[in-house]
């Protein structure tokens, strides 16, 4: 049984009397401990898909099963990292993480909650910033706190919606490697199942085991590709290999090929 099984998912909505289809018959599954990226241009419904998984939106048709159980709403088996930091501005970094831990693991005592929060803030390199409020932290630091919170909640599944989309290139690289390191872990604990939404092809290749490509209007799964590179991956070495370039080019041509299919033919007027 797959960890996450998405079957025949469709989302329709009506806005100003016009009918839209955000997702059309989307099906794929994610295995336990697998890191899967969903990529696609904006408007392909990848964020809609994730919000259904998060439980804050409901599909018009189809279903999502987690461990064989249908998703009916939010649940503390899933940790979420949004693009826009999504920290509570009135809580310090430490309290933000501890609050997440409290929700996901209510049995822990207050002291244990804060111990877990401290541990994960240390891991994301924010030990000196625990007492700061989000407004006192940079975007990259806020996203570290959000990642620490999601990891500290110790959920089986991590859902990440373009978590590094709003972060500058240098910090993005650092955060990607941090996430990879944290996800790969020390080999003793079970790996988390990650569903990672992005529009950055390099990010998807570096991080994932498998890439699900989506195309727009209506949003549907276009292609699923297994990433052939062994782990642990080293970015600087990996990007220099000819295999990487070949794989990347293949993805790009698939990506743009899809767009070419859409706008190709006689209708294109440039």
């Amino acid at each position, binding site marked *: 049984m797959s960890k996450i099984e998405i079957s025949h998912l469709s989302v329709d909505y009506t806005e100003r009397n016009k009918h839209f289809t955000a997702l059309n018959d989307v099906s794929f599954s994610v295995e336990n401990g697998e890191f899967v990226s969903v990529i696609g241009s904006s408007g392909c419904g990848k964020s809609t898909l994730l919000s259904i998984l998060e439980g804050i939106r409901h599909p018009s048709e189809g279903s999502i099963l987690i461990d064989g159980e249908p998703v009916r709403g*939010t649940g503390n088996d899933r940790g*979420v990292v949004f693009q*826009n930091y*999504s920290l509570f501005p*009135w809580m310090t970094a430490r309290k933000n993480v501890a609050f997440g831990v409290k929700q996901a693991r209510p049995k822990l005592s207050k002291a244990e909650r804060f111990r877990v929060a401290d541990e994960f803030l240390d891991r994301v390199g924010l030990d000196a910033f625990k007492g700061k409020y989000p*407004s006192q932290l940079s975007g990259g630091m806020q996203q570290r706190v959000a990642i620490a919170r999601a990891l500290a909640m110790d959920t089986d599944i991590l859902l990440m919606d373009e978590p590094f989309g709003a972060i500058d290139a240098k910090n993005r690289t650092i955060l990607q490697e941090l996430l990879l390191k944290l996800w790969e872990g020390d080999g003793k604990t079970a790996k988390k199942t990650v569903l990672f939404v992005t529009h950055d092809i390099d990010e998807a290749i570096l991080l994932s085991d498998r890439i699900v490509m989506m195309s727009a209007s209506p949003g549907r799964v276009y292609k699923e590709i297994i990433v052939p590179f062994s782990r642990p991956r080293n970015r600087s070495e990996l990007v220099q290999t000819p295999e990487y370039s070949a794989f990347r080019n293949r993805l790009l041509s698939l990506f743009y090929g899809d767009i070419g299919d859409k706008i190709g033919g006689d209708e294109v007027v440039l």
Partner: protein
Amino acid sequence: MSLGKRFLRVTNLLFLILVAVQFLPDRTAKPAECLNVLWFAIGLEILVLIVSALIKKPEGLALFLDIIGFVYVFLILWTLASAKLMWLKETLFPPPGRVFAQFITDFPKIMVNIQSSLSIIIQGYLLAALVSIPLGLLLGWKARVGNAATYISKFLSAIPPIVYIPYGIALLPTFRSVSVMVIFLATFWPVLASTMSGVLNVEQKIIDSARVLNVNPFTMLFSVILPASLPQIFIGCNQGLTVSFILLTSAEMIGARDGLGYYVKNYSDFGDYTRTILGIIVIGIVVVAISFLFNKLQQHLLRWKK
């Protein structure tokens, strides 16, 4: 900061002028009691010197000295216009020394009046806040798009609460309970309106991130929505506090038997303008002190804001 920056300031010069002015000959019929002003000024100046020696931030010192300087200028002009030049009749416009003397003799009475006024404010205000904030959270959360309650509370908060006084007198047994009711109403509607608009304006991303943490409705309301709307709630609370003071002192002038408004009204009826002025000054100090404490509370609770 250098010693010169700390101690060679205009405020200290004003102190010396204030002291010198006290020694000009009095032209009042009764003693002007300028010695009281002298003692007050010396006490204040000792405070100034201590603060000047200890304070770390130059901006903080500048602000403090400006405020004290303003007090000195005010006392210089008051002393000159009353005791020394007698621009108005002595009974209508008593010299500051006499007001200080009155403050000392009336001190116990004034404290009783302050206590009476404050207890009414606190009862009406706290009761209103304790009811309207949770109610506003609930109503706002039930209909995040805006509902009838939003319009009703906006409409009702626009009615000047002073108009409830005559009806309140007919309705309630004591004047005290009327005052509490009026302050309750004066606080209730603006706080309710601002709480609801605060809830309506909480960013969707904050609500979504709470939802994905799977919080229960109670946690959502009191650990997420409440702190997120707090900046807005404080707008209503500030408005309620300002209006409460205006109302209370007005109400006390209409029909109370104690309180600061009563003190002012009663003595001005008897032509005792020394006490009238004293009452006005005391009301000013009480209002400033409460606003100061309230601002400190607000700063503390909203310290996470940029």
